[in-house]
């Protein structure tokens, strides 16, 4: 019975490492050759670097292939073949899907996918959902706007591919979605951590419904790192009485990583469909050993219409030293995506990653889920303040909570903060992805 299989692909997901590496090299040569022959953008980049497909013979040759940055993609679009420009590798009539990035980091990037690429997207997600325990007997509710961002589209189609029953929760507002869940009793759901927490809050505070009693058993999160932040994961799991799993992907890349049922404190990279390299931020050297954080450079080995070849994702990751108890040979990145290079900023001379603040706030009893960080300048000195929401009934504990918060933040971030307490519900709520870090110095 297929439901008893732990892996979507029991061959690839347990392939010995040396065979996986050989597969990656072979597929990299193929996709590099494809981009070289069919993408005017990539060809121009490779010609300037003086590199051709015949130069890639061993793994160590891959590092010489120039990287692609998101800013380059912005420059080449809106030209013919409209609107994708020079990186489209197939005739325009073979493009079956348009998506664009969310625009969080600047002008949205347009992404073309052929029907084969779109099938590939759901294939990548099938690895994810199967690893997280989704089976044909699941009813999956997807509270997503089904809009122009790739988000959970492929999650929907992968759930169908696996054999689940899919309930599309688009257009319904949050309260209507909760009532639909109560009515239909789905067993699984997908969403951003921000939305999962927000939905739980709405269920409890506006509808008087305990989200933990709605019957959801598993939740797949994506779009933000929260599901790999232990305190955020714990809040979601407690609110929904469900297992929460992380996944990392991107419009320009694909669905490249996933947490498995064993929840080893990291995520598997789909090493059969993606080549992940970790680059030292300072030197650019490739990091092979575990425990050293660097920037992810990634290649999607089968994506054809707009290939993703050595894309500089700006995601910070590190390899885990230990294999996973699930038996997969796909490598683990420890702690999931640890942040973004462009999110890290210097405050009072100290490098700060916003995720560290989330870990502290969500790990503190007496505080709500929402928070806001504001960095500003007073004269020549940086200031950093943290706004939090006090849960009702904790008014007498403000002094203790503030002291604990400041202590934990000092330990985690090496910085001193001024803390502002607000009533529950007073800080901004975000529908999908949150923007909680505001740097007013810029």
């Amino acid at each position, binding site marked *: 019975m297929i439901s008893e299989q732990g892996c979507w692909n*029991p061959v690839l997901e347990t392939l010995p490492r040396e065979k996986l590496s050989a597969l990656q090299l072979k597929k990299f040569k193929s996709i590099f050759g494809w981009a070289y022959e069919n993408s005017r953008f990539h060809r121009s980049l490779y010609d300037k670097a003086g590199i051709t497909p015949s130069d890639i013979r061993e793994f160590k040759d891959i590092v010489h292939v120039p990287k692609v940055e998101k800013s380059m993609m912005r420059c080449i679009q809106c030209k013919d073949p409209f609107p994708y420009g020079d990186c489209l590798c197939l005739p325009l009539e073979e493009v079956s899907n348009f998506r664009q990035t969310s625009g969080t980091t600047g002008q949205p990037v347009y992404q073309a996918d052929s029907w084969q690429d779109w*099938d590939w997207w759901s294939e990548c997600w099938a690895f994810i959902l199967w690893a997280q325990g989704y089976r044909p007997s699941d009813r999956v509710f997807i509270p997503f706007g089904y809009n122009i961002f790739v988000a959970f589209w492929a999650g929907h189609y992968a759930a169908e591919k696996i054999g689940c029953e899919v309930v599309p929760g688009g257009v319904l507002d949050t309260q209507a979605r909760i009532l639909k869940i109560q009515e239909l009793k789905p067993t699984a759901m997908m969403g951003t951590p921000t939305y999962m927490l927000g939905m739980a809050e709405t269920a409890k505070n506006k509808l008087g419904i305990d989200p933990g009693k709605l019957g959801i058993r598993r939740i797949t999160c994506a779009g933000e790192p929260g599901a790999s932040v232990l305190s955020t994961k714990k809040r979601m799991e407690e609110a929904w009485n469900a297992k929460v799993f992380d996944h990392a992907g991107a419009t320009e890349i694909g669905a490249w990583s996933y947490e498995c049922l064993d929840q080893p404190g990291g995520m598997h990279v789909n090493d059969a469909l993606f080549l992940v390299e970790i680059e030292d931020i300072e030197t650019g050297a490739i990091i092979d050993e575990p425990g050293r954080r660097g920037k992810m450079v990634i290649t999607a080995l089968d994506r054809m219409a707009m290939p993703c070849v050595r894309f500089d994702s700006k995601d910070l990751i590190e390899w885990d030293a230990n294999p996973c108890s699930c038996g997969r040979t796909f490598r683990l990145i420890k702690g999931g995506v640890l942040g973004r290079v462009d999110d890290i900023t210097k405050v009072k001379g100290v490098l700060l990653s916003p995720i560290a603040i989330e870990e502290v706030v969500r790990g503190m009893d007496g505080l709500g889920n929402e928070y806001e960080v504001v960095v500003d300048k007073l004269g020549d000195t940086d200031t950093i303040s943290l706004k939090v929401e006090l849960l009702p009934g904790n008014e007498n504990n403000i002094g203790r909570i503030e002291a604990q918060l400041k202590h934990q933040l000092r330990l985690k971030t090496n910085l001193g903060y001024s803390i502002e307490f607000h009533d529950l519900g007073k800080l901004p709520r975000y529908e999908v992805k949150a923007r909680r870090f505001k740097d007013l110095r810029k």
Partner: protein
Amino acid sequence: MTAQPDIEKLDEQIQRLKQAALALSEMGDQFPAVKRNTARVLSSIKMMEINVSDVVRLTEPDITLPVQR
């Protein structure tokens, strides 16, 4: 873990399916329902090649080329 499937035999069937689908695609040039549905079949076959055939053919010189339609 259960016994590994016979991926060589799987690949044989996948390739038979592919040849049949390619032939169907050629025959469907004046038949949109056949042509477009075969395109979808060929994409599914490509997914099976990614899952099975690419490993079987690891020691062969070329990865399966993109499906021509």
